[in-house]
């Protein structure tokens, strides 16, 4: 029997009585002892002795019977078949007779279970549930569709919101199919709207500091300014173009009214951008006067104080007409405390936080309309059919006589042509002929609308026309589309704060609607008199699809639907019932990937938001990497991948600039090209380290795009090639003078198989590689030789060291490590020119398989020179091959293009961080 078993047995038999007997050897002594004992109690009669023996035995037996064998727990005494799972956790699982003892035993370590004293039923009761929801959205803002999403999506907490990342069901391909042939719906309400009000010229003057015409149309673009179109623009810090960009925004002017110069502008920005954008806007507009919410009438109490805001549903009907049979127990309870109100809008903000800033000098008012409107995005060619089925233009008969109706607050003198306007919009919306519109029959795709078209509408409550079953919206043949929308059709009451609030406050509750439905004579029929509150002003904004490149034009076009807050679910469910797919954050990334558009903030490494995201991502990836056991990790050092989790853009750009300058100087010595001298001197001046920028200048992009196109490759339309000056060394140099430290957004499509991944390296093929490629098309591509990980020995040394370090912790352990460092440092390393000696200080935080800071030369680390990295990569369902999107250094790209033969121009190699295999890819710069 093993020692453990003996121990166990001892423990078990601890309380059991042993036989009372005398062994042969001890018998005599015992007898003596017994005799002695009897001699002491010699006079005692036998009966006394006997009685004592009996009592001793009884005692022993009692001990055996009452004491449990198991030491640990009470239920050790229970027979096996009566033991239950988690008995020690919950004493109620014990038999009742043991519960008291168990409770007494557990009393010392009292559980905190008392907190959940409410039953589930009580917790799920409406009021309590609402309170709970309100508590939970104090930290992160919930969208109005949050509950709907939370039941179906993996939720992530991002940017201060709770957002659905991806559905819990498998729908990657169906979602793609929806985007390319039907309709995909997304809730983009987390996008922040900033409203600017003021004189037109002053607004434009202020905003022009933040943009540049070189990067495309600005805030002042004529079409956008009229209010017919939504514009998009990349904003920069004031006066800093082309450096220090902030990020892309979309903007929408309110159509002019009555030749008034007072204008209203909405700027929609990503939440991570808002924190940079808002102070910048305030600085530009000189709006530093924060207006406290209650003072300014522009800010409604609803906005300022969302918790005290009256609930969206009308409160009166339930009290006024109690449904027989239901007890109104809560009404008395509600009277005691303030009743819980549904939070609409931003619940995380303090009611006293200012949302309005005003300038006394320029008269511009900035309004933060975050969460004031709901924004849904419909992507796909059939999104207009979905909208047409869901939305029904409001019937206008009551607008003439409304007194207590929805728009009672509307200043009608402000829109004298209100009714006419309604009518026209209805006509446009119904895709019928109207003398204002140029009609094109037979347009079947959403993408055929001019991009950014805005359509203001007043529609009926879509819940009234909710189909009983989910149906797929199909395009009707008679459908007509409009080419142009007159300016007054873009007008909407949604621009009016008071109307928005009114509509939000007067929304019919679901409960009330159901009651009305139940009172309809024919069940299931439509509610005939449309309730007055059931009219909602909305804005439809067309979103352009893929605009760049030649293939798949206008893929992923769609509509954005802007609603007043509080109406989110009222529109969401009817839209879902039209057979749309719902996408999350993941899908919006894929959407922009298929559009070959950079996605904010992932693909904006020069913007503050992009930098922040990159840092977050790096930490996240590193954390994930560290969770694997070291033996199961990819050794990125061996793969020659310096930075698998982040892209050191700055270092890349600097190195390439250095390379180009060196090259130039050499040539200058050779005095082959005289023209470079000038550019060199220019570059010398720009020696000072600057931040990287992403080239967004249209002209330069067009030039680059022309240059990377192989001139003789078939299948390429020779579009505009003639316009582009041919690539020469002098042209490249002059280009570089302006864009030395720039990166450029490129799309790469793989020739053969292979799926590019996040942070794949984009490298320059050597001449031999290109020769091989020409010979055999099926050739997979070159291989990277395996690198040596000479940090491994150092880590080993450190693993041993701590014992030594512990003994000599006060004195520095550096010398020991240094000693072991030298042999490894002297190892012949074929690729790295610079050995990271300095990193030995940080050896303690060496991670096996990752290159420690500082990185060696990123460009020349591998056998193929690195140009850049991919920020997104996937198998593209639209083109049927692997596609990657990323940035390359402009300097690197130009030098590569210069050295490549004409027929192979624009061919690069792409290598995933966890692979040694290079794949050929074609580079595309699309403008």
């Amino acid at each position, binding site marked *: 029997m093993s020692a453990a078993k003996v121990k166990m047995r001892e423990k078990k038999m601890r309380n*059991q*009585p*042993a*036989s*009372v*007997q*005398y*062994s*042969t050897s001890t*018998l005599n002594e015992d*007898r003596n002892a*017994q005799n002695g004992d009897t001699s002491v109690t010699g006079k*005692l*009669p*036998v*009966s*006394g*002795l*006997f*009685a*004592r*023996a*009996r*009592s*001793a*035995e*009884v*005692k022993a*037996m*009692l*001990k*055996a*019977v*009452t004491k449990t064998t198991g030491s640990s727990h009470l239920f050790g005494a229970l027979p096996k078949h009566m033991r239950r799972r988690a008995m020690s956790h919950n004493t109620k699982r014990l038999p009742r007779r043991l519960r008291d003892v168990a409770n007494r035993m557990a009393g010392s370590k009292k559980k905190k279970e008392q907190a959940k004293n409410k039953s589930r039923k009580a917790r799920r009761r409406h009021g309590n549930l609402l309170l709970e929801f309100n508590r939970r959205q104090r930290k992160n803002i919930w969208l109005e569709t949050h509950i709907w999403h939370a039941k179906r999506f993996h939720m992530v907490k991002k940017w201060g919101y709770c957002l659905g990342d991806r559905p819990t069901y498998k729908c990657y391909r169906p979602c793609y199919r929806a985007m390319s042939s039907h309709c995909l719906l997304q809730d983009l309400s987390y996008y922040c709207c900033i409203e600017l009000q003021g004189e037109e010229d002053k607004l434009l003057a202020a905003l022009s500091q933040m943009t540049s015409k070189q990067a495309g149309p600005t805030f002042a673009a004529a079409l956008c300014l009229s209010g017919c179109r939504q514009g998009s623009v990349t904003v920069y810090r004031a006066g800093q173009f082309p450096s220090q960009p902030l990020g892309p925004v979309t903007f929408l002017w309110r159509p002019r009214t009555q030749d008034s110069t007072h204008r209203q502008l909405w700027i929609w920005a990503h939440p991570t951008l808002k924190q940079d954008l808002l102070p910048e806007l305030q600085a530009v507009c000189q709006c530093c006067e924060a207006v406290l919410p209650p003072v300014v009438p522009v800010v409604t109490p609803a906005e300022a104080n969302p918790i005290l805001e009256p609930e969206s549903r009308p409160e009166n009907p339930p009290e006024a007409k109690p449904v027989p049979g239901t007890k109104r127990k809560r009404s008395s309870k509600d009277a005691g405390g303030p009743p819980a109100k549904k939070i609409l809008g931003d619940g995380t903000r303090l009611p006293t936080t200012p949302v309005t800033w005003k300038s006394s000098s320029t008269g511009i008012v900035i309004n933060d309309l975050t969460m004031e409107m709901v924004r849904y995005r419909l992507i796909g060619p059939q999104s207009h059919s979905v909208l047409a089925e869901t939305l029904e233009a409001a019937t206008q008969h009551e607008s003439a006589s409304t007194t207590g109706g929805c728009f009672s607050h509307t200043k009608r003198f402000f829109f004298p042509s209100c009714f006419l306007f309604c009518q026209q919009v209805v006509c446009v919306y119904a895709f019928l002929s109207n003398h204002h519109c140029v009609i094109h029959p037979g347009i079947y795709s959403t993408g055929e609308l001019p991009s950014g078209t805005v359509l203001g509408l007043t529609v009926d409550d879509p819940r009234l026309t909710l189909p009983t079953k989910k149906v797929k919206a199909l395009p009707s043949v008679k459908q007509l589309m409009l080419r142009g929308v007159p300016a007054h059709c873009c007008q909407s009451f949604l621009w009016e704060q008071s109307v928005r609030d009114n509509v939000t406050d007067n929304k019919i509750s679901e409960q009330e609607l159901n009651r009305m439905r139940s009172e309809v004579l024919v069940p299931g029929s439509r509610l005939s008199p449309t309730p007055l509150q059931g009219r909602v002003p909305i804005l439809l904004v067309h979103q352009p699809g893929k605009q760049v490149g030649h293939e798949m034009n206008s893929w992923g076009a769609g509509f954005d639907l802007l609603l007043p807050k509080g109406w989110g679910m009222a529109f969401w469910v009817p839209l879902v019932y039209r057979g749309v797919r719902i996408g999350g954050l993941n899908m919006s990334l894929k959407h922009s990937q298929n559009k070959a558009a950079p996605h904010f903030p992932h693909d904006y490494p020069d913007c503050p938001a992009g930098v922040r995201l990159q840092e977050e991502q790096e930490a996240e990836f590193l954390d994930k990497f560290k969770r694997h056991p070291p033996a199961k990790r990819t050794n990125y050092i061996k793969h020659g991948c310096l930075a698998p989790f982040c892209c050191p853009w700055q270092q890349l750009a600097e190195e390439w600039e250095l390379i180009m300058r060196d090259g130039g100087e050499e040539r200058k010595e050779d005095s082959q090209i005289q023209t470079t001298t000038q550019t060199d001197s220019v570059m010398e001046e720009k020696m000072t380290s600057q931040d990287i920028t992403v080239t967004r200048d249209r002209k330069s992009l067009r030039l680059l795009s022309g240059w990377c196109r192989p001139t003789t490759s078939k299948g390429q339309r020779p579009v505009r090639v003639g316009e582009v000056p041919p690539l020469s060394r002098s042209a490249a140099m002059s280009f570089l003078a302006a864009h030395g430290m720039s990166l450029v957004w490129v799309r790469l499509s793989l020739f053969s198989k292979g799926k590019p991944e996040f942070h794949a390296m984009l490298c320059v093929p050597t001449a031999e590689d290109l020769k091989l490629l020409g010979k055999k098309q099926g050739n997979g591509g070159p291989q990277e030789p395996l690198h040596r990980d000479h940090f491994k020995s150092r880590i080993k040394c450190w693993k041993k060291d701590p014992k030594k370090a512990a003994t000599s912790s006060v004195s520095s352990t550096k010398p020991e490590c240094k000693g072991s460092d030298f042999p490894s440092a002297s190892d012949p390393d074929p690729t790295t020119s610079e050995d990271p000696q300095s990193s030995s200080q940080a050896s303690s935080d060496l991670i096996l398989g990752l290159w420690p800071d500082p990185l060696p030369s990123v460009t020349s680390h591998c056998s193929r020179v690195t140009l850049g990295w991919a920020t997104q990569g996937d198998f593209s369902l639209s083109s049927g091959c692997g596609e990657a999107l990323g940035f390359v250094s402009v300097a690197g790209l130009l030098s590569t293009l210069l050295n490549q033969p004409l027929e192979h121009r624009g061919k690069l190699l792409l290598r995933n961080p966890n692979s040694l295999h290079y794949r050929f890819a074609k580079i595309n710069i699309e403008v």
Partner: protein
Amino acid sequence: GSSSVGRYLLCEINVSDKSQLLLLDDRAVATAVKAAVARTHGDYGLALCTIRFSVKYLNTHTGIVLLRFPKRCYKLLWSALPFITSITTRGHNIPCFLNCLHVGGTIRTCQKFLIRYNTQQLHRMLPKCKNEEEKQQIREAILDCSLEDGTKEAFEEESESEEDEEE
């Protein structure tokens, strides 16, 4: 499983001279039982007796012995117990006979019975006492018959035992 199921016989060894009891040990008792079984039931009985027979507990002061027999054949083996007339131990032949007090399915029930039985015995001894001294001693013994924390159970046993006194 069923292979481990046994029957526990709680027996009392009755001897004329109480001091002789001290000489006993469990091996001697086991040999005596086996010999008796062999005598009454032959080789078959002896074979049955070798399988799962053991002396679980022996108290030489009180003469209480706890025997385990296989459940399958405990009646057969039990029938041999009255034929034990003497136990040979350490060169002495002690004349005695076994009186079976209780048959239980577990040691625990036997222990419980033994508690009851012993207290009962003590109570019975009380009126038979010749002098006050003895009486006092037995009273002390009775009072001593309880664990510090197990008093309640002991009292229960006592109250039960009083009802069974007619046996």
